[in-house]
C-alpha cells in the first residue's frame, strides 16, 4: 500500500463526492429543460444548479482527482516517498476550504455566474476566493510533482523518468501555464470588482484572459486519461507499450500546442483581432496531432497484446484482447467516444462552420462527449485499477465494474447525440425553460425526452460507480488481500534511455513562452491600446 494512501483517498473521495452531487443536478437540469414538468423548477434554481454542476465537474472533480492520482503515480512509478507530505495535506485542506466557500456562495444564490463567470456579472467575492484556494492548492501539487521528479532524476542520473511520472509532471507544467490566464482575470479584474474596489470592468480583456485558460484546462483534465492509455491499458491487456519516445512526444505536444489556441473560443467575439484568431486556429489544427499519435501508439500497443494472446490476421488481435478487464474495456469505449468528440471538435475549430453551432447545444454535446465520456470513463477505470492498491483489498466484483462502464458510455451517447442534432438545428444554450408550444420548438420534444433518458442512465451508472468503490472500504472478511504492486506498462524495447530533451521540460517551457507571447501578447495588449469603454459591474446578489 502506498504510504500516502490516506492522502490519495481523501483527494479521490472529494472528487467523486462532488461528481455524485453534480450529476444529480445535471439530471434535474435536463428534466427542467424537457417538455415534462419538473419539481422546484425556476430560473434562479436552474442557474444555481448549472453553476454548481459546472464548478463541481470542471473544478472539483478534475482538480482533486488529478492531484490524488498524481500523488499515487509519484509514489508508485518513482518507487520513492513523495516529498513534503505535510505540505500536500495543507494544500488539500486549503482546497477543501475553497470548495466550502464555493458551495456556500452558489447554494445561497450569491454566485449565479456559471463556472465561466461572465464579468461584468459579479458574484460574491467569496465565490472567487474559494476558486482561488482550489487553484492555489493545485499549484502546491504542481510544485510537489516537479520536486519529486527532480529528486528522482538526481538519484538516478542518466535514466529516463518513468513515463507515467513524466506525463504527470507534463500535466503539472501545463497546468501552471494554463492557470495564468484565469488567475490574472480573477486577481486583477474580477476580485477588485467583487470587493467593490472598482465598479467597471474591461469585458473584452476578461474574455481574452479567460480564453488563455479555457482550452488548455481541457488538456489538464484529459492527460490522466492519456496516462492510462499509455501506461495502464497495454499492461492490463498483457502487452507492451509500443513506443516510449512517441508517448513522450505526445505529452510534450499537448504542453506546447494545447496553450496558444484559446482564442478559438472567441471566434464570434467582436474584439479580438481577426489575424490572431487565424493564428490560434492554426495551432488548434496542430493540437490534433498528439491525439492522432496517441491513437496509433495505443492501438499498436494493444495489437502487441492481442497477438501475444494468439490473435491472428489483420484484425484478429482485437477479438483476442481481454475485454473483460475494466481498463481495457474503458479504453475501447473511451476511444469510440473520442472519434465522435474529435469530429465535433474539427467542426468547432473551422470558424466558418463554427458560426452554425456557436453557443448551441452542439457545444454542450461536444464537451460532454469528450470530457464526460472519453475522460471521465478513464477516471473510473483508473479508480478501479488503483483502489485495490490504496485499500489493500482485491476487487469485490469485476462484473459490476463492467456493467458500470458500459452503462456510462451508453448513457453518454443517448444524452449527447440528441444535443448534437438539436444544436445543429439551432437550439441555443444556457436556457432554463423552452416554450414547447412554439411551432419552431415543438419538434424538439422527443429529442429532449431521449437525452433526459440518457441523463437518467448516467445517474444510475454514477451510483453504481460510487457503490463499486465504496465496497472496498466495507469490512468484508471474504475480500482477499491485494498483494500485487502497481505495475505500469513496459515498452517494447525498454533498454533505451529517452533523449535528454524528452526527460525534462526546460526546452519546452522556452517554446511555450515563445508561442504564448506570439499568440497572446497582441490580443491582450490590444485592450490597452484601443482602450474600450468599460462596463458597469452587475452584482448578481443584488447589492
Amino acid at each position, binding site marked *: 500500500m502506498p504510504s500516502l494512501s490516506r492522502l490519495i483517498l481523501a483527494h479521490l473521495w472529494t472528487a467523486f463526492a462532488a461528481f455524485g452531487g453534480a450529476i444529480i443536478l445535471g439530471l434535474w437540469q435536463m428534466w427542467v429543460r424537457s417538455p415534462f414538468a419538473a419539481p422546484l423548477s425556476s430560473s434562479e434554481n436552474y442557474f444555481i444548479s448549472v453553476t454548481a454542476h459546472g464548478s463541481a465537474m470542471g473544478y472539483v472533480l478534475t482538480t482533486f482527482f488529478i492531484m490524488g492520482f498524481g500523488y499515487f503515480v509519484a509514489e508508485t512509478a518513482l518507487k520513492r516517498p513523495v516529498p513534503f507530505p505535510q505540505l500536500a495535506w495543507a494544500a488539500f485542506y486549503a482546497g477543501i476550504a475553497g470548495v466550502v466557500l464555493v458551495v456556500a456562495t452558489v447554494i445561497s444564490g450569491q454566485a449565479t455566474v456559471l463556472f465561466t463567470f461572465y464579468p461584468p*456579472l459579479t458574484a460574491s467575492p467569496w465565490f472567487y476566493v474559494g476558486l482561488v484556494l482550489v487553484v492555489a492548492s493545485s499549484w502546491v501539487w504542481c510544485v510537489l510533482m516537479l520536486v519529486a521528479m527532480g529528486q528522482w532524476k538526481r538519484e538516478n542520473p542518466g535514466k529516463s523518468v518513468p513515463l507515467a511520472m513524466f506525463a504527470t509532471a507534463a500535466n503539472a507544467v501545463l497546468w501552471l501555464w494554463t492557470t495564468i490566464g484565469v488567475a490574472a482575470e480573477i486577481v486583477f479584474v474580477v476580485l477588485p470588482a467583487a470587493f467593490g474596489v472598482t465598479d467597471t470592468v474591461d469585458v473584452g480583456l476578461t474574455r481574452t484572459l479567460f480564453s488563455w485558460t479555457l482550452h488548455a484546462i481541457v488538456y489538464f483534465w484529459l492527460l490522466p486519461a492519456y496516462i492510462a492509455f499509455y501506461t495502464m491499458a497495454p499492461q492490463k491487456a498483457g502487452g507492451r507499450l509500443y513506443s516510449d519516445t512517441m508517448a513522450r512526444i505526445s505529452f510534450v505536444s499537448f504542453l506546447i500546442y494545447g496553450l496558444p489556441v484559446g482564442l478559438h473560443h472567441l471566434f464570434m*467575439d*467582436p474584439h479580438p483581432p481577426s489575424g490572431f*484568431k487565424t493564428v490560434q486556429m*492554426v495551432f488548434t489544427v496542430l493540437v490534433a496531432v498528439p491525439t492522432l499519435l496517441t491513437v496509433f501508439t495505443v492501438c499498436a500497443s494493444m495489437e502487441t497484446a492481442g*497477438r501475444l494472446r494468439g490473435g491472428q490476421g489483420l484484425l484478429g488481435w482485437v477479438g483476442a484482447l481481454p475485454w473483460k478487464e475494466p481498463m481495457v474495456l474503458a479504453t475501447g469505449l473511451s476511444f469510440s467516444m473520442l472519434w465522435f468528440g474529435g469530429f465535433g471538435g474539427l467542426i468547432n475549430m473551422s470558424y466558418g462552420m463554427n*458560426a452554425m453551432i456557436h453557443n448551441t447545444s452542439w457545444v454542450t454535446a461536444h464537451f460532454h462527449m469528450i470530457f464526460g465520456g472519453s475522460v471521465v470513463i478513464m477516471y473510473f477505470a483508473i479508480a478501479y485499477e488503483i483502489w485495490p492498491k490504496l485499500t489493500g483489498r482485491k476487487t469485490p466484483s469485476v462484473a459490476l465494474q463492467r456493467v458500470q462502464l458500459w452503462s456510462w458510455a451508453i448513457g453518454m451517447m443517448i444524452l449527447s447525440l440528441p444535443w448534437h442534432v438539436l444544436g445543429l438545428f439551432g437550439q441555443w444554450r444556457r436556457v432554463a425553460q423552452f416554450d414547447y408550444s412554439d411551432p419552431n420548438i415543438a419538434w424538439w420534444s422527443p429529442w429532449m425526452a431521449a437525452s433526459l433518458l440518457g441523463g437518467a442512465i448516467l445517474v444510475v451508472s454514477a451510483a453504481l460507480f460510487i457503490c463499486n468503490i465504496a465496497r472496498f472500504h466495507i469490512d468484508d472478511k471474504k475480500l482477499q488481500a491485494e498483494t500485487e504492486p502497481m505495475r505500469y506498462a513496459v515498452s517494447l524495447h525498454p533498454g*533505451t534511455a529517452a533523449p535528454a530533451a524528452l526527460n525534462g521540460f526546460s526546452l519546452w517551457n522556452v517554446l511555450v513562452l515563445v508561442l504564448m507571447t506570439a499568440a497572446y501578447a497582441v490580443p491582450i495588449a490590444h485592450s490597452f491600446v484601443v482602450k474600450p*469603454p468599460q462596463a*458597469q459591474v452587475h452584482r448578481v446578489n443584488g447589492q
Partner: protein
Amino acid sequence: MAISETGVVQSERRWALAMAVVSVIFLTAILYAAIAQHLSPPSNVELIDPATIHVSGEFAEDNLGTRLEPEGGVVIRLVTTQFSFVPSCVVVPQDAPVTFRVVSPDVIHGIMVVGTNVNTMIVPGYISRVRTRFAEAGEKLMPCHEFCGLGHSQMIAKVRVVPVNEFKPDADGRAHCAEP
C-alpha cells in the same frame, strides 16, 4: 514480439508523416479560404460606451430596427439588454444583403438567428456586426444565446423575412414588423 526497434521507429515515422499530411491538408484548405476567398474569422473593433448608448445617435431608441440606408443597403440596429431585445421584432427583405449592428448597455449577450449562420457575441464596449442574406421568407427566432442573468431564458426576438415586394420602408427608410 517479432517487431524490431527499427521496425517500430519506421512504422511511427510513416504514421507521423501521414498525420502531418492530413494536418497540412486541413491548414491549406482553411488558409486558402482565409486568404484567397477573404473568409477570415469575424472581428469588429468598433468602440461604443455602454453607459451612453441611448444618447449615442446611432443607437438612440428612435434609430433602432430596420433601415434602408440613404447610401443603400439594409441595416438592422439592435440593443440587447437584460432581458429583452430592442426592438423585439425586425423585418428584413428576402435575398438582399443585410447588416446587423448590435450593442449591449449592460452585460454580455449573444444572438443567433436560428437556422442561419447569423451568430455573434455582444460584448459591452464594442459594436458587433454581422452581414448576411436570408434566402427564404418566413419568421425566424432570434434568441439571446449567452448567459446574461436570471432572465436569460426569456430573451427571444423575431426576424421576419418578407419578399422584396412586401418590404416597404417609410420615407425615412425605416421598416417595422406589422402587428401579427
